[in-house]
């Protein structure tokens, strides 16, 4: 499978701390990749390198065959890379519908009128249509997460990056979100999903990568990866007896 979005041997340091160390990570067209690893392993930094909020000191970021290492976030979004933030960043004073419309108009590159339809569809897909006229500032956490998802979808992405979207949600809520993500994936969108809630991840992704100390520890089929002793030790901190 040809890589759609790839980090190629990228390194990133903050001060004296190397957070990402010659990391290579790629997702193919229509593929769903899960990324796990302990806190501080560099997962969120890896995502920020993909969306262009950070630039690597070494290595390249490639999307659909083009080197995008120096492209700014808005350009990457318009090219088809969308992100849902771990901590939602709603536009508080705008309505839910307007929040999504921002994605449809700027990320999707449509005129406002043409973006109305897709924006509403994204809202419906994320299960927020009933709240379309609510000010985003008053949403609950689950609704904010849904809004992040709807806004990202409205940009018409080819690859969707999910940063701990299930974090802080209840079991039932996670289940609902998983359903939405599966549907997005079935529609042909590639997915990179960083998550701590492994069982949620496993119900969507076909491949799992484990990052530790900014490096790739293992990469492969989810069951095989989770069965490896070093993964259990590193990630869960529980010695398997």
């Amino acid at each position, binding site marked *: 499978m040809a890589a759609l979005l790839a980090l190629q041997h990228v390194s990133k340091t903050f001060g004296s701390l190397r957070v990402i160390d010659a990391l290579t990570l790629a997702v193919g067209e229509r593929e769903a990749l899960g990324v796990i690893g302990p806190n501080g392993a560099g997962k969120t930094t890896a995502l920020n390198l993909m969306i262009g909020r950070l630039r690597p000191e070494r290595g390249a970021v490639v999307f659909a065959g083009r080197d995008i290492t120096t492209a700014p976030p808005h350009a990457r979004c318009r090219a088809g890379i969308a992100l849902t933030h771990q901590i939602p960043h709603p536009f508080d004073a705008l309505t839910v519908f307007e929040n999504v419309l921002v994605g449809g108009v700027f990320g999707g590159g449509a005129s406002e009128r043409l973006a109305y339809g897709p924006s509403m569809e994204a809202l419906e897909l994320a299960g927020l249509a009933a709240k379309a006229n609510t000010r985003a500032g008053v949403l609950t956490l689950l609704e904010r997460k849904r809004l992040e998802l709807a806004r990202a979808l409205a940009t018409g992405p080819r690859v969707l990056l999910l940063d*701990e979207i299930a974090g*802080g949600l209840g079991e039932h809520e996670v289940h609902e979100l998983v359903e939405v993500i599966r549907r997005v994936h079935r529609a042909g969108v590639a997915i990179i999903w960083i998550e*701590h809630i492994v069982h949620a991840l496993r119900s969507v992704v076909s491949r799992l990568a484990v990052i530790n*100390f900014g490096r790739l520890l293992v990469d492969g089929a989810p069951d095989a990866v989770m069965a490896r002793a070093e993964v259990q030790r590193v990630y869960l901190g529980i010695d398997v007896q």
Partner: protein
Amino acid sequence: MTLLSVRGLSAFYGSFQALFDVSLEAGEGETVAVIGANGAGKTTVLRTIAGVLPVPASAVRFDGAPVGGRPAHELVDRGIVLVPEGRRIFSSLSVEENLLVGAYRGRPGRWTLPRVYELFPVLAVRRRQPGTNLSGGEQQMLAIGRGLMANPRLLLVDEISLGLAPLVVQDLYRVLRTIAGEGTTTLVVDQNVSQILPLAQRVYCLRKGAVSLEGRPAELTRARIAAAYFGIGV
């Protein structure tokens, strides 16, 4: 006797509720472990006790007095000190200056600069260097040393082994044992269950902002911890 008593604690970030009716206790001189998955609310519990988040006064009692929601500096005066997640070393201060900031309130007690250096010899060697030039493990030692300089009665340590290599983590736990041996009450948050359990006299497992399991380590089996940790099996 009970030094810290948290009763029916609920905490919010804006409209988002992070903690639901959490209760926990720490006896004088005990080591208490708080475990749980990411986002379970462990850090929030510590930050609430340390006075970063507003809560009703009665929700947190320290040495018998209601102290919930008091400003952090007042709690430091009373002897509650937090070693924050991610170390948070002051980048424009040297190692020694970081330690001295820990002693800002001048609370009297056993811990002095020489004694902290005795506990962490590597800090003495690198005392003149910028604090952020240290490795991750050394930074964690510095953060703990900085907390000790405040002469705490209750030391809260958040995510002590976060992002650190196993050998370094073992070192840190040796130090924790020493600190506990001095009679300082500690409340330690860690995802690394296997290290912390042997040290603790009490364990609280959090899940989704509520206590999902509590007890003495000896009473708890791996299976019960795993169930409380993840909700369902891995």
